[in-house]
């Protein structure tokens, strides 16, 4: 039997169908978001929606190429691909073009390509390769340090391009590490630190530190008061206080003015409706005005008046919320949860560690994008400019998400070949 028949017999159609649904819904919503009465055709190439069609077609082609490539190619060349993307990230720092504040683009003619987008699957490949490579001693320093290096290097380079949003995406790999045996305490600690950071920013460290000390004192009554526990608790308390101070210090000294305002606006400390808060407020108006059933296709008034900025890219979910209402928003969210869960389940059935870890990486990255992007449009997350996977307008992101997903689908097709 030829390999081609194999592909279509063994491919996980649920993943493919979910992918196609999201891409098509994205395209329709981009059309509605930037609808231009002079160019009514959805395939008009002078408009974003026409160009998105090109991106979709090329993405499908890329997906097919990935499916036709030997699955072992990706694990074999994982480090090479990773190295190549690191070189690209270095190159863009030196020769890139600055678009809206981030020096993260290569401008080729009228098209712009963002290497950071391709860092995601490259990092994921390298991480999967590392964990699947040999018998690893989970306790060794090397096993703990190298993954952090693999994740941290691209994140650092992207941060240097002044693209904080894309750099933060790499924190999603925490979920992969969790699945690989990282203590759940780290996830809890992560949540704790976020809570501490937010409360420090909201009420100031002068209030948070005493509260923390009192909490630590109370905790002392509930634990066994042996020497080791007391030392650990004190160490944690010191760590917490140090963290609170550093949050304050970093925000005051290192963050740019616009990042600071965005944080303040999210926390409700500042009502800056004409500046940073404008996007979120307009986005909430657009989504909120959709009601239960939405205003209908192309009837979103917020769209017509261009109230919401970046409506075809980062704020594409507004169009969904406004024109398709609660029903449409629910459909999109459910589709994403189905996709993410399906990826996790398919990952679990992999026989190779590489496929499994890679799958978790895919789910983590998509989840992070999904949670942050939709979270910011409904005012639950700070405004971090990252796209909604498969939905947002843009060639680089659609290509990279497609490659990311299809490498995984390809690994899955091949799982039975591994004994």
């Amino acid at each position: 039997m030829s390999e081609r028949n194999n592909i279509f017999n063994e491919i996980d159609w649920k993943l493919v169908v979910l992918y196609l649904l999201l891409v098509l819904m994205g395209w329709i919503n981009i059309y509605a978001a930037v609808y231009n009465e002079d160019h009514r055709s959805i395939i008009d190439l002078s408009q974003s929606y026409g160009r998105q069609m090109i991106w979709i077609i090329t993405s499908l082609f890329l997906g097919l190429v990935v499916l036709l490539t030997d699955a072992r190619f990706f694990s074999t060349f994982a480090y090479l691909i990773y190295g190549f993307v690191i070189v690209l990230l270095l190159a863009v720092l030196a020769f890139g073009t600055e678009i809206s504040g981030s020096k993260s683009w290569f401008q080729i003619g009228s098209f712009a390509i963002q290497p950071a987008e391709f860092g995601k699957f490259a990092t994921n490949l390298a991480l999967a390769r590392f964990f699947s490579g040999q018998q690893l001693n989970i306790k060794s320093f090397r096993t703990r340090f190298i993954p952090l290096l693999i994740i941290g290097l691209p994140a650092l380079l992207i941060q240097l391009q002044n693209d904080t949003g894309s750099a933060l995406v790499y924190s999603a790999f925490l979920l992969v590490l969790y699945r690989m045996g990282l203590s759940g305490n780290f996830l809890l600690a992560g949540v704790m630190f976020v809570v501490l950071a937010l409360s420090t920013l909201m009420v100031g460290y002068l209030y948070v530190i005493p509260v923390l000390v009192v909490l630590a004192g109370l905790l002392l009554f509930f634990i066994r008061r042996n020497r080791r526990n007391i030392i650990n608790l004190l160490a944690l308390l010191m760590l917490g206080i140090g963290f609170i101070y550093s949050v304050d210090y970093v925000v005051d000294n290192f963050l740019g003015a616009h990042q600071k305002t965005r944080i303040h606006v999210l926390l409700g400390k500042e009502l800056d409706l004409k500046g940073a808060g404008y996007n979120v407020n307009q986005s909430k108006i657009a989504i909120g005005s959709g009601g239960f059933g939405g205003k209908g296709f192309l009837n979103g008034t917020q769209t017509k008046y261009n109230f919401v900025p970046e409506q075809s890219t980062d704020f594409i979910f507004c169009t969904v919320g406004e024109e398709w209402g609660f029903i449409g928003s629910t459909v999109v969210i459910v589709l994403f949860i189905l996709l993410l869960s399906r990826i996790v389940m398919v990952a679990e059935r992999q026989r190779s560690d590489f496929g499994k870890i890679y799958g978790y990486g895919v789910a983590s990255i998509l989840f992070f994008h999904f949670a942050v992007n939709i979270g910011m449009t409904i005012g639950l997350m700070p405004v971090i400019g990252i796209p909604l996977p498969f939905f947002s307008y843009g060639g680089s992101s659609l290509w990279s998400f497609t490659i990311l997903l299809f490498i995984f689908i390809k690994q899955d097709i091949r799982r039975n070949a591994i004994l």
Partner: protein
Amino acid sequence: MANKSLASRKQNVIAIFVVVGFIYLVRLFYLQIIDDSYELSANNNVLRHIIQYPARGLIYDRNGKLLVYNEAVYDLMVLPHQVRDIDTLEFCRLLEITPEGFRQRLIKARNYSLYKPSLFEKQLSKETYGYLEEKMYRFRGFFVQSRTLRKYPSPIGAHLFGYVGEVNQTIIDKNPYYKSGDYIGISGIEKTYEEVLRGKKGKKIKMVDVHNREVGSFQDGIYDTVAEMGKDLYLTIDADLQEYGERLMQGKMGSIVAIEPATGEILTFLSSPAYDPNLLVGRVRGKNFGSLVKDPVKPLLNRALMGQYPPGSTFKMVNDLIGLKEGVLTTSTLYSCQGPGSSPIRCTHNHQSPLNVYTAIQQSCNPFHWLVYRSILNNPRHKGTRENYVIWRDYVMQMGFGHKLGADTDSELPGNLPPAETYDAIYGKGRWSAMTIRSLSIGQGEILVTPLQLANYGALLANRGHYIVPHVVKQIGDIPTGENRFKKVTGEISPASYEIIVEGMRQVATLGTARWFQIKDITMCGKTGTAENPHGKDHSLFMAFAPADNPVIAIAVVVENAGFGSTWALPIASLMIEKYINGEVSRKQIEEDMMNKRLF
């Protein structure tokens, strides 16, 4: 290396996904279904974006007298996607338009945009507006937007101010500030100072109820921006003098430009025939513009900047100055004049002979100036006629001729002062001499000047050798601009040479061609010109400044096809000077003669 016991973490990961998804759905449920404030504020019919058009800046004269202000008018706008259930017939009756006109306007608006407001009927009369306002609730999709139009308390300065009109597509494509229906300065200072005068547009978002009534500002007006009124302009123009000049020029074609020599400030700037600037405002503009365009005396032509005339005898001092500078003329140089029998250029006056430079200016002697000019072009210090001509032309350019002066007015023309190449082309290289181009000695031939250049020349003589680029705006808003904005131009010829020429010009007014129009207690220095004109009767020119020793005004007057300089331009200029310096005119007879005589 996947540990079996870690496999249970699959559930935890999926649980995280589901919990986040659930939280988002709850939030969406709250935003979209429970909290209806968002829905209200974005409801399809609720918001109306109204552009707040700022009033253009006002224009005052040099003494703070208001010359241009604004009057409110009302434009009827339409939002095509909201138009429904309208009693078209009643609507048409109110607006006095036909149902066919109604249909066409609506189609035009729809073609522009269904969702953006379009202009339906501009500048409603106050009565129509009042009546419409009452019934507005019955006409869904229509609303009224207030605009301002220019208004001129006295009908003067039409060419100076220019006019304001609606932007066309070319302007919209070029400059993103302008949107369809905006106004822009089309000519005059309305054009040159457009960016200062226009101010900044604002925006108001109003909520409108289902009956098309405005019920308040959207979200208490936090998205509204206030329109900023344009900055006021304070002109250098003296409105009284301007008006007096326009009255003197009634029925005559030509121009008067007067400049304060020390500052380059233009005191009077007029082109005749003029028109009432109120004619080119609002709904009547199209019709009036059409008839002004067709008028054979060309009232729309700004003769002060675009009329180009041979300077005639007013140009003779230019040659004297260059002769003095080049050393071919001194105060003791004498040339003889054979009167009407002179060759190659005849003299038109009877006077003594031989004569010196003072008398030559005083008597406007043609042969004397021809001989000065010939000695400049044949000057043995340089190589040949051509090189001498190039040097001569340079000096003339330094006096403000042959190029645009750079005034802050619209559409200035450069006049004409041919480069040597032009004569090479006409006569062949090396085949022309002083004799060939002798007309230039008396300001005839190819040379052409604008009234502005002629007045500037007066200021140059008054200042004994320099001029400030002439301008009409003294101050923008509260900030004085004047002196630094316009540069001082100083030629190579020394003030001492100018004193000699000025003495000649003084004698023009006391003993020479202008002696019949002396002003009591004021010494005027001037020069008449009678410019031959191939198309008809000679143009009458006069250029002067006064008082001789402490000049406060330099003036040029051109009256087209009127004959001698001393019969038309001279008396008008002398009246203007008297009016400006003394505040009133004592020579009533001359004043009456000039005002009442009509040449067309």
